[in-house]
């Protein structure tokens, strides 16, 4: 059970004023401070090959630790620790809002994000672009993005023989650069080819799949990140907290101003009531003085 740093009411307030995304990022960033282990999370469209890739990266092809299939097989964020790295598999995006929310929440609690794209579908879809932008924007500076984001094209085997494959890859790279605003590690891999290579004991196939290079990079990246995780995680939490505070203070100021305006408006309307009462009272006082005077005069007749 994850510790809850915010009460239910506080989370409602955060969601209401800062939006669910920032609220989720803030909670995730704080939770991520509790773990010293590097967390690597995957994300991408349904059936882009995220779980298959994770089975290979965690050496779990045979037991299929992360269930795979053509349909929406991953419905919760499954995780597995391998080589001192926690691999977290998330549901595909753009199918269910609940899946998207879970993916985002999981990503906010993670260190390195593998954005997985099925190259068979060509360039990034609008949804993928938006998703990548959301992730990228949540990370702050380009330096942090370079350290935390890795872009992976899967199903390389389906298109690599095509004449324009490099062009497609370059187009995707260019889109990613445009969205992230900096160059991030980029890989194209084929799980199928790697498994063939393993099954046929053909190292060349394995190498050509791009998986060994990716695996080595991730392990190296994991170790590198582990040394600075505390600093990065705390910096990230500070940054997200500052973002939330800034929004909350701004809304607080607006609310305060509105309260003052409302108060002034009521006071203004009551000023006329006070004047009306003052007039009524003065007339009454004059009648009463007149009556008292007459009474006195009567007494002296």
């Amino acid at each position, binding site marked *: 059970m994850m510790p809850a*740093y*915010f009460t239910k*009411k*506080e989370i409602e*307030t*955060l969601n209401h*004023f800062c939006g669910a995304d920032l609220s989720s990022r*803030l909670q995730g960033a*704080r939770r991520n*401070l*509790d773990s010293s282990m590097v967390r690597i999370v995957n994300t991408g469209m349904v059936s882009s090959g995220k779980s298959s890739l994770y089975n290979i990266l965690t050496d779990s092809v045979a037991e299929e630790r992360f269930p795979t299939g053509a349909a929406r097989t991953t419905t919760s964020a499954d995780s597995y620790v391998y080589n001192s790295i926690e691999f977290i598999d998330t549901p595909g995006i753009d199918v269910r809002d609940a899946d998207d929310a879970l993916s985002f929440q999981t990503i906010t609690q993670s260190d390195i994000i593998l954005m997985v794209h099925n190259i068979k579908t060509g360039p990034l879809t609008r949804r993928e672009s938006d998703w990548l932008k959301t992730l990228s924007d949540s990370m702050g500076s380009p330096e942090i993005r370079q350290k935390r984001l890795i872009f992976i094209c899967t199903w390389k085997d389906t298109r690599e023989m095509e004449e324009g494959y490099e062009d497609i890859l370059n187009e995707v790279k260019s889109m990613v650069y445009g969205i992230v605003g900096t160059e991030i590690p980029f890989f194209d891999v084929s799980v199928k080819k790697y498994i063939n290579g393993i099954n046929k004991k053909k190292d060349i196939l394995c190498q050509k799949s791009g998986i060994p290079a990716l695996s080595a990079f991730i392990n190296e990246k994991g170790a590198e990140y582990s040394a600075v995780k*505390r600093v990065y995680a*705390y910096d990230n*939490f*500070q940054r997200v*907290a500052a973002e*939330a*505070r800034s929004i*909350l*203070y701004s*809304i*607080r100021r607006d*609310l*305060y101003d*509105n*309260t003052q305006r*409302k*108060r002034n408006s*009521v*006071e203004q309307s*009551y000023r006329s*009531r*006070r004047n009306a*009462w003052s007039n*009524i*009272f003065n*007339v*009454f*006082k004059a*009648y*009463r003085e*007149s*009556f008292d005077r*007459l*009474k006195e*005069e*009567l007494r002296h*007749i």
Partner: protein
Amino acid sequence: MAVIFAVVGGAVVIGLCSDSDHSDYSDYSNYDNYSNYSDAAERRERRLRAKQEETESARQKVNEYKSDSVNPCLTLKSLIMEPGESVEVPSVQRNGNEKITDEERKKIDAETADMKKEVNEIDQVISKIDKLLEEKP
């Protein structure tokens, strides 16, 4: 001789006294003077009646005005029940002012309650964020 003087002197004295009394009676028996006295009394009576009517009219006016125009501006039952002719005027003024001040405060509270609640909720979250930032792991 002495007796003569005494008799004559006494008669003069009596005569003088008798003359003086007669003069007084003569005044009262004078018709004009009596008429003057009666007019003054009547005038006084008329003045009294006029003043009484004026006072009664002023009494009605102050009571009606108090009941129709002042009472709706008051909250204290004792002041509302008391007629305008006898109610304590400074208390009326004070209660009328208090009523407006209370209503104004209630109106401000009602119209700003939601915003104040939201400000409190925000303050609570900001405090929590600050606390978490202080707890650097």
